[in-house]
């Protein structure tokens, strides 16, 4: 019976995910078309410098299919998303969007994954430490690190650090990106700084959330009971307090994924990483409709999928949460 309920729940969540992605894609399509600007003029003018005739502009518009009815354009794009072409080709350079995604996605994925893993390793222990040493020097030190992490824009920190590295060490990261399986040392050198910056920003939130929720949980009755039984403090924190505080922490981590992805946009440009973020920004600025539609739809799908996975993790981390309550929990973020 329980398995049937889980299966039923999962089915409707997947249907909802697909429907939401579809609606989002329609909205993205409409918004992009409503934006002022003309990609054809951008292409022909070389970024706004060269002159060209109206006839050439109209001919290129027809060649790129931009004179077709909007419904036809959307339908063509939607079909190419479904059949694996990921939206067809870039209007700017004619590259298949599938190749753009397969090339850019791993870069951003690696960047975000490294940052998440490092954040978890760093932030949960720091949060526990800060909570257990409340208002002592360890707590103050942790807050001294996390407040700038939350306050400073990551691109600002990036530029300061790069300039500092040049001035002091006369060194800068490599300028040509390689995947880890191509040249591991080069990969580490080029990705280390952006990963550390993202980790600093991301983990600062998690440390503070962890600290806050542990401080709430340690006043619960079952914790007092555990102390009365004579259990060691470390055991109480890790086996009882942390486990119960994990639910909101996992929620925050999942919600932070959107922040992380947006955080990669400028860092990718500064550090020369050929990821999704930089590609998306450039495509939006020049109105490369197909690329923007495809990448944003993909990101929406990824975010919704992550939310679904987090909801399922709730169930594992807290058996008290039933499926009927889970919906409330996921939307309340607690």
């Amino acid at each position, binding site marked *: 019976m329980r398995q049937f309920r889980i299966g039923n729940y999962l089915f409707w969540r997947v249907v909802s995910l697909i429907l939401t992605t579809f609606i989002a894609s329609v909205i993205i399509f409409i918004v992009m078309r409503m934006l002022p600007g003309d990609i054809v003029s951008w*292409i022909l003018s070389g970024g*706004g410098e060269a002159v060209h005739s109206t006839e050439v502009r109209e001919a290129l518009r*027809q060649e790129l299919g931009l004179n077709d009815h909007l419904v036809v354009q959307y339908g063509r794009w939607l079909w190419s998303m479904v059949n694996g072409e990921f939206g067809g080709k870039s209007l700017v*350079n*004619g590259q298949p969007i599938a190749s753009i995604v397969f090339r850019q996605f791993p870069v951003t994925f690696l960047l975000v994954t490294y940052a998440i893993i490092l954040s978890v390793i760093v932030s949960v222990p720091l949060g526990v430490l800060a909570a257990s040493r409340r208002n002592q020097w360890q707590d103050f030190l942790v807050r001294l690190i996390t407040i700038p992490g939350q306050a400073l824009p990551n691109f600002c920190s990036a530029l300061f*650090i790069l*300039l500092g590295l040049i001035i002091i060490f006369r060194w800068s990261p*490599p*300028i040509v990106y390689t995947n880890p399986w191509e040249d591991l040392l080069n990969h580490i050198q080029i990705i280390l700084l952006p990963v550390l910056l993202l980790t600093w920003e991301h983990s600062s939130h998690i440390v503070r959330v962890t600290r806050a929720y542990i401080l709430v949980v340690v006043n619960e009755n079952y914790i007092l009971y555990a102390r009365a039984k004579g259990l060691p403090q470390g055991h109480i924190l890790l086996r009882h307090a942390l486990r119960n505080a994990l639910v909101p922490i996992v929620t925050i981590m999942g919600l932070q994924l959107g922040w992380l992805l947006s955080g990669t946009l400028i860092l990718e440009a500064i550090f020369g990483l050929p990821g999704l973020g930089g590609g998306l920004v450039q495509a939006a600025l020049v109105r490369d409709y197909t690329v923007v539609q495809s990448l944003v739809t993909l990101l929406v799908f990824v975010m919704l999928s992550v939310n679904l996975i987090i909801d399922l993790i709730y169930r594992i981390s807290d058996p008290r949460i039933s499926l009927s309550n889970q919906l409330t929990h996921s939307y309340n973020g607690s």
Partner: protein
Amino acid sequence: MFTTILITGLILGHYNPVLSPISDVSEKDSIDSERQEKDIENFPPFPDVQDDDIENTSIQQKRGGILILANRGDPPAGFDTMRTSSIALHHVAGALFGPGNLVMRCRENMYLVCPYLARSWFPNPSFSEWTFILRNDVFWHDDTQFTPDDVKFWLNLAISGLNVGDKIRAPAYFEGDLEEIEKVEVLPPDQVRITLKNPNRFFPDILANPRLKIAHPRHLMEPRMNNGDVSISPLDIELIGLGPFKFKNYEPGTIIQVLRFENYFEKDDRGNQLPYLDGIDYVIISDPVAMDIAFRTGRLDGGARGFGHYLSEERIVGYTRDLGDDVSFAQIEGGTIRLAFNVLKSGPWQDMRIRRAIALWIDKESAIPAVLGGFGWTTPDISPNNLFKDKRFVIWPKFDLEPLDERRAKAKKLMEEAGYSNGFSMGHLCRARHTQACQFLKDQLLGLGIDLQLHIIDEGEWNRARVSLDFDTQPGALSVLPIPEGTEGVYGRFSISPDAYSKHEDEEVDRFYRLLRDATTTEGRIDIWRQLQKYLFLDKTYIIPIAEATYVVPYRTHVKGLTIPSEDGHTNTDFATVWLDK
């Protein structure tokens, strides 16, 4: 850890002012009619780049090495030189496709036309037909011989595009430059005859535009186009070109790599085959600060070309501090900042007195440090200022040579006469990447009582709005047009040239361009060109040229043999004569 690095770096860093800035010309000098000569002495303060290395036969060029250059972005449009003139493409396209087509701008003097794929050419007596005799030692990178049929294919594709069934391929963006071509004929075995609709003595000058590159091998593209793949781009056929370097590798967003083409036809004065380099790596760095950092830590041999990546006085400080004598700076005359009026839209600016008043009021000299990063000078628009090589379009008496306070008094009087002594409000189309120039104009015009409303837009909207009649004024593009014939697209009537900076329907401008086309001597051409400039900038003041940027590109001093053009960063990007002295 990060804070420590930050603080330490800031403490250890120090700022040195740049010595002898290029723009340091006093107002007194600006009214000196022989200021051109004084400018030669003041300009440039940095050692210019090394044309001597080519001309000095005692220097032994070294073969080998990989030149590492920054490129400001991925080449758009699949590297198709018919689709776009983006410098992100042409910085690379020169190496792959060569510095020209049948002809090219001479490396020693870009205002002259030199042979490239054609070894010679001759007109008929009426200058309505031009016959080009091709070289017989030119090969595509797949070792297929280059033939007159390639020329015909390329020109027809550029001028007319292609229709296959219901599929269409648009003509080249530069088809307007070639619209005078009526017919292209192949005269076997090695000649191409181009018939023009009207006689033109200076047709090779038009053809020598470095943007007109042959990147479309007929033997590879024509079969696929006839099968319906009309939008095929050079990237789709592995970038097979005619240039000194052939394609090796392209990772979008990261790097473009090219290698020496062993079968390249050009040779140096000693008969040694070009190019000297083994190859070039173009590293894609879209952020200018990231480029500065990479260059200053020795990861680059040369900077990127393109607005935003050219250096300013402040950025040069870091270069000279970190690299000292290991860096030199190439200077290229660049685009002009200007104020252009839409006189087809009703408003006070339709009154010529208002436009003159604004032209007299603006302190153009102050635009150089304020807007151009310290590098530039005031000049009429479209005047190639090649101080060192050729003055055929220079020695131009400047407009409005009185002291600033006298000009401003006149401006006030004109405003009063026009009935706007209290000023008015006027819109201005402002590109988000050029807000400094917009703010400069806004601040300047406040003194005249004009409230310049800035409409700040991104590149996508810029390319729509600038060809529309929606705006009151605009800055115009930063294009560089070294020959007068190339300017009709930006100065002509709106109904013929929607890209024109100033929107007008003045048929007198048509008359000047007709006279230009009919000119029979260079002196006559220069005279008509000056009359046209005077008409546009003074008599009608449709456009107010303010200052011309000087683009500064850094190179390591071990990079030798660069042929830096005096203007137009698209020129001489083949790097065939470059060698590395290390």
